[in-house]
């Protein structure tokens, strides 16, 4: 079975007056059937850019500078946007602002009509309304929402309704870019449960879920990729990543999480000093080195990838731990580890 998405050495940047802003740099990852792949990292690390590439929503000033992307086993033409017939059927996007972007004079049933009409020229408003109501009911949401305007729904309900409408055509892939960041915790959990339900009913077959909220990752994602300054820092099973992070950046992110447990209150949690680099002018070598407590001179050289494509980290310290001894930059690069 082929992966739903497979990016290999994908690189892309924004063409600006000041030069190319390399927002995605040499990213290799895949989305498998039946899974939720999470992508996390601080703002400005390229998550939304990667989401745009995976959704083939590639418009200037964004330009692909290298690598390939396969969708459902077929090599995609990255010089063109996703062809219209595949939007909504092969792939749908659930953006962060979806709930506020809806025209306030559009009812949910009009949104459903627009989605269906793009693919079924004969569809009537009446049948679009019925199909949307039925789908909402099937997923445990109130079918009468179809006759409501966006402002008549709570923020959380609006986001869930948009998720249902945008998957009416059963797209194989759903790309959700921070769909829940503006919601309160209870609405976040409800959205996550809905996405899981869409997957288990095989309405959709795989989800790329972007958030900077690690505890939320735990409840939604099967695997997580951590991005820093346009590159992948670490990728692996969610449990393993959050319980035993290997990469110092993942560790720092995990260490910034505030959970309501006594040890959190009794300590001062420091977060991560500094901020991610300007991608027009990123640091050489490991891009995390200016902020990394474990950095040394070796980190001025690109770190090796340790692990296989299932689970890996890019870090000199991780490489040394794996070999039980210090590793020289050239030795690792030469051995192809």
């Amino acid at each position, binding site marked *: 079975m082929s992966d739903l998405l497979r990016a290999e050495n994908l690189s892309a940047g924004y063409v600006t007056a000041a030069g190319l802003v390399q927002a995605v740099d040499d990213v290799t990852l895949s989305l498998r059937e039946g899974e939720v792949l999470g992508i996390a990292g601080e*703002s400005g690390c390229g998550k939304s850019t990667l989401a745009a590439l995976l959704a083939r929503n590639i418009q200037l000033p964004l330009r692909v500078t290298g690598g390939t992307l396969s969708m459902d086993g077929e090599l995609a033409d990255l010089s063109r946007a996703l062809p219209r017939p595949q939007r909504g059927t092969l792939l749908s996007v659930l953006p962060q602002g979806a709930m506020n972007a809806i025209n306030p004079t559009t009812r949910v049933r009009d949104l459903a009509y627009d989605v269906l009409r793009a693919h079924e020229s004969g569809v009537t408003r009446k049948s679009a309304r019925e199909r949307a109501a039925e789908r909402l009911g099937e997923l445990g949401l109130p079918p009468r929402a179809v006759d409501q305007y966006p402002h008549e729904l709570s923020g959380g309900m609006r986001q869930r309704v948009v998720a249902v409408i945008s998957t009416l055509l059963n797209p194989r892939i759903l790309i959700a870019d921070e769909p829940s960041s503006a919601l309160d915790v209870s609405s976040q959990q409800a959205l996550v449960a809905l996405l899981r339900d869409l997957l288990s009913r095989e309405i959709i077959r795989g989800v790329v879920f972007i958030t900077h909220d690690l505890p939320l990752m735990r409840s939604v994602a099967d695997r997580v990729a951590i991005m820093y300054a346009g590159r992948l820092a670490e990728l692996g099973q969610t449990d393993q990543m959050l*319980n035993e992070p290997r990469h110092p950046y993942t560790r720092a992110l995990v260490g910034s999480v*505030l959970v309501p447990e006594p040890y959190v*209150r*009794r300590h*001062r949690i*420091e977060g991560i000093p500094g901020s991610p680099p300007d991608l027009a002018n990123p640091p050489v070598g490991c891009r995390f080195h200016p902020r990394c407590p474990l950095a040394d001179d070796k980190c001025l050289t690109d770190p090796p990838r340790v692990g296989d494509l299932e689970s890996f980290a890019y870090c000199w310290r991780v490489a040394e731990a794996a070999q039980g001894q210090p590793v020289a930059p050239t030795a690792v690069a030469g051995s192809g580890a």
Partner: protein
Amino acid sequence: MTGPQIDEVTASNPFSDSGTPLLEFAGVSRVFGSVTAVKDVSFQIAPGQIVALVGESGSGKTTLARLAMRLLLPTSGEIRLEGEPVGKHSQRAYWRTVQAAFQDPSASFNQFYTVRRLLRTSLGVLDQKLSRDELETRMAEALTQVGIPPAMLDKRPHELSGGQRQRVMIARALMLRPRLLVADEPTSMLDASLRVSLLNLLRDLRDQQGLSILLITHDLGQAYYVSDRLLVMYRGELVEQGETEAVVAERRHPYTQQLLADVPKLH
């Protein structure tokens, strides 16, 4: 363990000796048409205390914040600042003691204003203009308190990061040397790591300046990390309140239990 624990710090807080609460809500309700947004709410904020208000969206948190800011008056009940009913203070006088920092700094941040100009916009509520020296002193003091280098005074919003913008909005409030800061979801636009540093800033302002803070958030993890007292709001009512640790440990009200159950677990 090195350093004092939070509870010891609070217990020995030199700013919380005075008996009169800084802000007090006594049976406050606020009605809009047929909707009671805030219902019979009573609580107090002592000097040098961080009080967190948690609840889901739509539960009345922002209405309560607006009441605490004197942007709204109660339909019934009384709000007292330093023992005086709020009606006795003019709005301008009130804002010399109580200042706010809101959710999305970019919304309140005029894109053409420099940091310098923005900081001055809070000063309109003063009766007398500050001397040039006093103004410079206050700007330097406010920026230092929030950890922004004075070299940033001439920057415009797009030249600042999200975390810096939020700190500048807090500095703007501090220009008036208020005694209470009302912060409505100040971290909701920030990443987890920036969130922690902003909450550390609130802790430092409490511990070093004796500032009282009303922090409004839907995130129990954040409330738990910074607050001395916790208020739990559900459908306009305070269903539970008390010392933060006790409220979370005992979780008496079913809504508090649900809030805790909904907090995603890291491990």
